[in-house]
């Protein structure tokens, strides 16, 4: 039986192998970069909220402590989103007729809760606990970024597992003294290489084996 393809067509088979591999690589690149992009992780994306609440104004300009609103951050897995009552503590006195606050007043009046859109949304099989991170010297800024500069709340970090593990593997590089946890402006001492390690010992932070056991976060 004679040859179906002439010898001169060999080039096409070589080209198609190379192109095929390149295409697969390209597809893989698309998948990977898409899954790491803010489009999927939600990083640096602002979302619509019922009230255009500005952390930059309340934290940056007014200097309100995180815990005034996020009351349960030191005792519960959940940092708490403040009840409408907390807003009205001040806004029954000031800006009482600002149109932007109408949803808040309506909520208080009608006893219907505000429905915020979650900005930092972990997958449902991850069980993050705020209280322990705060107790062990993880600053709010470390994960949430400089919220005092965010007119609209956005997610500073990717919240992917590799990002979590950065700190769970090397807590000494990220933690800060407990009294600085709620500070927006704290800087770690630059010229003290053992600073983090001392804090890890002092705060009895679990070893890496414990911090990276699956059931520490997944259950």
């Amino acid at each position, binding site marked *: 039986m004679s040859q179906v393809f002439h010898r001169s067509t060999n080039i096409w088979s070589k080209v198609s192998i190379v192109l095929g591999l390149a295409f697969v690589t390209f597809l893989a690149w698309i*998948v990977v970069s*898409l*899954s790491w992009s803010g*489009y*999927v992780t939600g990083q640096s994306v602002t*979302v619509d909220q019922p009230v255009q609440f500005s952390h930059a104004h309340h934290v940056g300009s007014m200097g309100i402590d995180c815990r005034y609103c996020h009351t*349960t951050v030191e*005792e*519960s*897995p*959940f940092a*708490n*989103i*403040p*009840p*409408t*009552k907390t807003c009205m503590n001040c806004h029954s006195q000031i800006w009482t007729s600002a149109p932007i606050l109408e949803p808040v007043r309506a*909520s*208080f009046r009608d*006893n*219907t*809760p*505000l*429905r*915020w*859109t*979650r900005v930092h*949304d972990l*997958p*449902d*099989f991850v*069980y993050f*606990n705020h*209280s*322990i991170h705060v*107790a*062990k010297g993880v600053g709010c800024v470390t994960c949430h970024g400089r919220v005092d500069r965010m007119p609209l709340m956005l997610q500073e970090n990717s919240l992917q597992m590799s990002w979590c593990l950065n700190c769970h593997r090397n807590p000494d590089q990220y933690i800060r003294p407990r009294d600085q946890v709620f500070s927006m402006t704290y800087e770690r001492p630059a010229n003290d290489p053992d600073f983090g390690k001392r804090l890890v010992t002092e705060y*009895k932070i*679990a*070893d890496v*084996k*414990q911090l990276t*056991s*699956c*059931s*520490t976060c*997944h*259950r």
Partner: protein
Amino acid sequence: MDSSAIRSRLAGAEGRLFWRSLGELSDTPQFREYLHREFPEQASQWNNPKGRREFLKLMSASLALAGVGACVKQPEERIVPYVRQPEEMVPGRPLFFATAIPFGGVAAPVLVESHEGHPTKVEGNPQHPAALGGSDIFAQASILTLYDPDRLQSIRFRSEVRGWGDFFSAMKGQLGAQRPRQGAGLRFLTERLTSASAAEQIATIKQAYPQAKWHVWDPTAKAAGAPSATYDFTKADVVVTLDADFLTGGPAAIRYTRDFAGRRRAAADAEAAEAAEHVMNRLYAIESTPTLTGAKADHRLPLRASEIAAAAQALSGGNGSGTFSNSAAQAFIAAAAKDLQAHRGRSLVVAGDYQPAAVHAIARQMNEALGNVGVTVTYGPSVDINAGDHAASLRELTQAMHSGQVDLLVILGGNPVFTAPADLHFDVALTKVALSVSLSMFPDETAFVTHWNVPEAHPLESWGDARAFDGTVTVMQPLIAPLYDGKTLQEVLAVFIDAQTGKNAHDLVKEFWTRAYAGTVPGWTFTDPTGQPFKSADSFWRHVLHDGWITGTAAAENGGRRAEGGNVATSDAVASTSAQAPAIAPGPSSALPPPSSSGLEIIFRPDPMIWDGRFANNGWLQELPKPFTKITWDPTAWMSANLAKEKGLIDGDLVELRYRGNTAKLPVAVVPGHPEQSVTVFYGYGRQVTGRVGSSADATAREFDVYKLRTSDALHFGTGLEIAKVGRYLLARTQEHHLMEDRHPVRIATVEEYRKDPEVIARFGERPPRTLTMIPDWDYSQHYKWGLSIDLTSCTGCNTCTIACQSENNIPVVGKEQVDNGREMHWIRVDHYYEGTPEDANSIKTHHQPVPCMQCEKAPCELVCPVGATTHSAEGLNDMVYNRCVGTRYCSNNCPYKVRRFNFLLFQDWETPSLEPLRNPDVTVRSRGVMEKCTYCVQRINLARIDAKREDREIRDGEIVPACASACPADAIVFGNLNDPNARVSKLAARERTYGLLEELNTRPRTTYMAELRNPNPELS
């Protein structure tokens, strides 16, 4: 079943042979094939009949999802904060409230976990004397009933939706007509009630309408005229039961189990010096239907139910005389009587609820003669406010209904159309009632034919009160507002009382107990736990709601309320006369019905899981394997191996039961240890009208209603039954699932043997050298080292752990068909082993063993996972990471304990909205294609670890209690840190009777067992 094969196998066995089922014992080819398959045949096939199109659709969908799974965006989530946040509410942390779940009117005291206002988990109330932290399957499963989407959701009149106001005015209209007749046409029908506030309401109604009558019917009520007794098993050295199952079946069993098992455990672990002080109690069970109490007994005598009375007589005569179908009876009874005599004042005779009053009278005489009254047993008035002859009460009502005397019948709870004895024809009588009202949680048989249907509030939605079995007043508070317009019994009764018009359940209950506190309700005086009076009514009420019960209201403590209590004066006289005679208390023989020996005996019992049928729509209880048979979802007729052989029946044969002119059908289960010429049938199945879960699957299953055979003159047993095979029926049983061939999973010794030679337990197996392993060592010294100890001496096989685990860990229900495929999902199962010859009921011994994940230190499962979805944690747990699992099932294949469970299909119900708040928010809800298993309740470990670390301390011993351990009424399961030598679990692990399951495999399981020790009478061995 091949009995010759069984005999030869038993004869050839070396040492003790334990077997789980007759199939295993006869070692049939079918059984071996079953055993050697990783999963049952076709387990990995998808048998959904939807067909090829559906399959292709799903395949393409899953391909697409697999490809871009990593890029799928999460759906947007909302956060909905409070408008005004309640005080003490910390979002993200659960709150616990004390309340009670009444069962048969008697309170099971519970603590309920509530996450942001929705209850998710029921635990026993640790401070309440009737629970001491334990609970039972019914209390545990009640949370599922709360969220059941099939509950009756609105008030209806002749199937049309109406409002509470409509009902109210309709009743007022009726009352207006009744008033001149003094309520002569007014009838109430309730179940057993212990609520003092309801009692007062009923008394008020009777005052206003003197001719009105109140009837009572509970199909499981004990025989009329039987004295009400409470037992103290902590003081009883010798216990003889007369067809009594005190370890299961109601809230009293929780405390009895704790006391009985506590005595056993203390004796088993007593050091030599204190051995004399801690005598192991000895239990003789004389019983008909095999029960878990009989399984726990040191000696068990199977007799027909009709022979129990004669056995009681023989026992009180002290000589075992009499003729019995069982040839071992005389020797047994004589030995038991001798043992009772030798333990005067420290023994106890317990008569069964389903035995006639005469047996109870003999038991009481014996207890009085033995000086047990006031020590191990207290007789007094019942905690029921309506104690009496239930059958007579219902008969009187039905006669009045038949003769047209009833204008308004108010049925408050219960399902009499389904449960009434057949000879009363309650359903026919109901059609002659001018207006009928039913209060029920489900659209059931009774609601189907009554005019007005009022949805009943679930106990977790209700204000109310009930008394515990010991009389302790237990107050109920709601965890959640009624989901479906439900009303409580008190609210419905208030409609009939002018003075209470418009009051809600909270006001009714609080107002009653505040009055009781103030002393305007006669008979009550309350003090705080220190014996001081409360500061104010408000502090009293707050205290009661916090604790869930009122101190000092137990009948034994509140002497005035229990006139008959304490030592009966005449008992001394009886004891002194009988001291010379060998007899314990010769009783009147004429009072006893003569034992009938013609025809087969039929024994009626409530189903151990769905009870009288009320839990038929509860999937957790339906799927819980029933004791002994391990059958799920269906009732069976139990009979002995000999009777089955005589009638040519095997397991799964469908038989027609003919009894007193009525017929019903049931599948057969051969139960070794069942008395001869006797058949036990379980009522509760064969439901015609109920929710989706409980409705009978097909026409055959609708004929399983054995209430149709029951007559009001012999509610609990009778003779004259005929059976005939009519076909086959598929039974879904877990008995042969997850087997571990021929090794020695349960280890048993007598307490004598063990004290003489503690090594007797270790000799059952071999402990290979610790170095004999290929798996590298892991250093646990720097972390907690979690371990779980399960004491088989205490375990009664009650299954509460299984259902508590199901509730805590969001474990789905899979349905009968899937159970038959071996796909049940329970993380902790209770294995059941027999010992003895099936044909010889006397030789049968039964053992139970709960099996959760062993959390092996050298875990075979971890090695074989190709995607690292099951890994070792620093604390030694075999972590299961659901989001990594791709469903190869290699881990399950490599697990010698068969404790891993695979989601073959989407077993979780993602659709039904009412089931969402049921789930524990701290545990992932697993999807299809994912392996899962016991985690030692890692969510509780993590919570405790975080709390401890925040406070810069170590986790305290006992701070973490997994769901199974917390629920266990016998306190048989202990969890803790094995690195802490002072932890309770470490001390237990160091005992000589502790062993590892299949420890010859050197998996070094963290879950260890403590061998079962029994205390047989040397005279009977």
